[in-house]
């Protein structure tokens, strides 16, 4: 569906209005300044922190944890998902349990992982990996399950071997849906890493937010929250636009 310019204009004005409301509201004491800080202040403090170094120190571990966890999840998750798709018995046996996984607070196992692997980034990366991989496995298996019967029949018509069929037909057909899984896997990895840092870590952006909350440094805390929000939304919009492009490409 093409995005009309008028839609974009409305969306942009909504964002501007909300920001303006928050900005004016906090300055005019309509919104209590102990609860929320003017967005402009948030941005200024964020920029200050970015230049003054401590932010970058913590940004790096957060970012690489998210990416490593996500990449591992993709490497393990896609074969796992393909396995689930091929093994119908396994799929049907696990079916009732799959959605229940979302309720498990995997980061609750953080102390266990620390006891196993020591403090540092490894437990955090593991938590990100575990959270992300389940999403990718489920999504991959769904992607392949959703391939149209036409394509499945095509492989038989062309008498392709299973590997050929997979490489040339099934995998390309599943790519758009797989991409949705990547997007989700990345978001969940980011969620898990930040949540773990928030709870029990000495490094990372999550830790910074938590520490600043505990020491009542509202300006710093909101600066980092703002950063996380912008980063998450930017990534998401970018991945969404790529997803859209991929889906238009493979419209039947």
């Amino acid at each position, binding site marked *: 569906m093409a995005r009309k310019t008028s839609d974009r204009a409305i969306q942009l004005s909504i964002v501007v209005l909300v920001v303006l409301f928050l900005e004016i509201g906090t300055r005019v004491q309509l919104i209590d300044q102990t609860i929320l800080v003017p967005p402009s202040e948030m941005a200024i403090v964020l920029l200050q922190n970015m230049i003054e170094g401590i932010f970058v120190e913590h940004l790096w571990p957060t970012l690489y944890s998210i990416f490593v966890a996500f990449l591992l999840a993709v490497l393990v998750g896609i074969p796992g998902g393909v396995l689930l798709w091929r093994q119908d018995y396994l799929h049907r*046996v696990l079916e*009732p349990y799959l959605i229940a996984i979302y309720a498990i607070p995997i980061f609750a196992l953080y102390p266990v992982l620390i006891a196993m692997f020591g403090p540092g980034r490894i437990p955090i990366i593991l938590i990100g990996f575990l959270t992300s991989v389940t999403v990718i496995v489920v999504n991959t298996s*769904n992607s392949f399950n959703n391939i149209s019967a036409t394509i499945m029949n095509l492989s038989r018509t062309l008498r392709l071997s299973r590997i050929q069929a997979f490489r040339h037909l099934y995998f390309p057909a599943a790519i758009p849906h797989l991409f949705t899984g990547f997007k*989700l896997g990345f978001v969940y990895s980011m969620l898990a890493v930040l949540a773990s840092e928030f709870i029990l870590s000495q490094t990372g952006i999550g830790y910074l937010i938590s520490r600043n909350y505990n020491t009542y440094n509202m300006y710093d805390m909101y600066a980092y929250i703002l950063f996380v929000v912008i980063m998450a939304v930017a990534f998401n919009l970018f991945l969404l636009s790529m997803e859209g492009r991929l889906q238009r490409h493979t419209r039947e």
Partner: protein
Amino acid sequence: MTFNTNGSFGHLPVDKITVGRILVPFILLVIWEGIALLFPHALVGPDEAFGIIHTRFLVDGDWVPDLVDTMHAVVVASTLAISSGIVIGILLGLYDMLHDTLEIFVLSIYSIPKVVLFPVFLLLFGITFEGKVAFSMFYGVFPMIIITMGAVRNVDDIYIKMSRSMGLSIWQTFRYLLSPLIIVQLVIGIRLAFNLTFLGVIIAELFAARSGLGLRLQQGMANFEIGTTVAIVTVILIISTIINIFMYLLQRVLEERWNIEIGSGVSL
């Protein structure tokens, strides 16, 4: 009861798949015991975890009020999240104008790691029950909106046009036209929303609460009491599995009644 002819054990009405499903928790227990034996200082095995659960719930009753508090919050929050999610999802699904402008906001907010927004809720509500409910509702409402919206938009245009030409109100459209068509997706959404709301309550209690399972979890984590931590996670797992299985059975009943296959085919 239907007797399956594929994979059934002779005259028994149970088929291979059901046996497999029942075996899954047992296999997981075995794996858990195995890991606990490998890492004795890091993890407690099922026997000790269940021992702790038995003591705290049945003998001392220490954790019972916490469980009640948590479940109370979960029920309130998920009811709110599910009902408002369905309503908003239907509105966004039916009215293109709303959808085209607002969908992107819904998806974007969904992608924000809500944990980092928790301090804001804490500042707004303090350490209260309302705060817990507000945060977890926020957690669970977005997937409900997204799934409902998707389900409504999947309905053939012709039905929507029919409802308009018949002059149906929104409630009538929903009740007579949409519900049978989207109920199947809705049930998946409800399951997911419930699970995420549950997670939201635990997270909220983990960070700042006066009572609740999450609080117990946080105490266990802070004091590095692995036994307590594992026991609480087990309790959470058991509760959510029971409720999920119940909802799954509901889903199967609906599938059979309307002859549609849903499985877990949703990407969220």
